[in-house]
């Protein structure tokens, strides 16, 4: 979030000004202006501004939020923004929030970070904003490497693996269902790949930093889950492993919590440097 378009680089400011100049209605122009201020960080480049402008120049039913119109005509923000708003909202003290995809609840990791004393509720003007580019790219590398690791592990081990592999475990951690290599490796690899692809696509599309960071957190979640399931699959001995499930569940939430907290603290440090004059 920025207080003025003056905080943008000249190139980024030019894109924003050109867009606002195309809006004849003063009220609508003010609304779009506020929307730009709310969703851009001081380091936003021209590409990021152009991506946000592209959202706002979609047909009127989509313009305010840049998302897809639902069947009932209501507007829905893009998935990375919904992920950020649900999964990382430190100002909201509720840990369980309505699910972004499907039914049920999601975990507001931002609230968890605040409860654990890792971050203040107002640690950033806009959650996950201002994260330096190297930190974002470094965070994205992890899920990509894990995804590649699953594929590499299968390529290396497949000739020694039994024809059927575990695809489901009971509450005691004992495999109670087996299937061929296709589903056994396809599901964990597919999950990891989907998360990494979403994060990579969000980055390549030049989406705002908070959305990229949230998508990266989601990528870690899917990559940890996929890699964990695959590890259980290839190390299965037929014995019960009651701690495997809880450990994997803890890691699936704990690792993204750590990554997102680290990114938020990096953004917080950038804000502090901005306000304290580069100290």
């Amino acid at each position, binding site marked *: *979030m920025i*207080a003025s378009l003056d905080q943008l680089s000249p190139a980024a400011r030019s894109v924003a000004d050109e867009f606002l100049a195309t809006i004849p209605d003063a009220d609508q122009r003010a609304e779009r202006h*506020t929307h730009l201020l*709310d969703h851009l960080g001081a380091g936003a480049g021209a590409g990021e501004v152009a991506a946000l402008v592209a959202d706002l120049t979609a047909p009127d039913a989509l313009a305010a939020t840049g998302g897809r119109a639902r069947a009932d005509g209501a507007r829905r923000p893009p998935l990375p923004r919904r992920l950020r708003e649900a999964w990382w909202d*430190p*100002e*909201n*003290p*509720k840990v369980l929030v309505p699910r972004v995809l499907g039914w049920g609840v999601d975990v507001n990791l931002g609230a968890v970070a605040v409860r654990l004393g890792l971050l*203040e*509720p*107002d*640690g950033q*003007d806009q959650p996950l904003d201002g994260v330096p580019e190297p930190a974002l790219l470094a965070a994205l590398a992890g899920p990509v490497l894990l995804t590649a690791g699953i594929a590499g592990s299968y390529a290396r081990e497949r000739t020694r693996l039994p024809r059927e592999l575990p695809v489901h475990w009971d509450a005691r951690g004992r495999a109670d269902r087996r299937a061929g290599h296709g589903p056994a490796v396809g599901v964990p690899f597919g999950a990891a790949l989907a998360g990494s692809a979403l994060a990579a696509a969000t980055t390549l599309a030049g989406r705002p930093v908070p959305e990229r960071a949230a998508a990266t957190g989601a990528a870690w979640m899917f990559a940890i889950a996929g890699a964990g399931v695959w590890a259980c699959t290839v190390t299965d001995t037929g014995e019960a492993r009651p701690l495997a499930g809880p450990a994997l569940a803890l890691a699936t939430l704990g690792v993204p919590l750590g990554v997102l907290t680290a990114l938020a603290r990096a953004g917080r440090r950038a*804000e*502090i440097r*901005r*306000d*304290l004059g580069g100290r």
Partner: protein
Amino acid sequence: MAAEPPLSQLRKGVVELAVLGLLADEPRYGSRLVDDLAAHPVLAISAGTVYPLLARLRRAGLVDSTWRESPVGPPRKYYTLTAAGRAGLDGQTATWRRLVDTLDDILQKGPR
């Protein structure tokens, strides 16, 4: 959905005025603002209400925030009223006084 208790509805209407009023005195950081508000139990304002409110007031341009060095630990984010915030506080205060005078009048005259 169950109806909200009347007192809760009343409180919601005055939280913003209370926050603007405290910030008019002096800049405050978030947790201190929460503590100062908690010193007035009748307001029953928690951190979960204050921080989203501060974010909304900042987006509306009524408050500004900036990090400052702290003598007793890491930097803290301080909130101050903007010119628009002061104007908003003045307007809300005038409205509040009229409301209080009107309600006092009604309650004194009406049946108990």
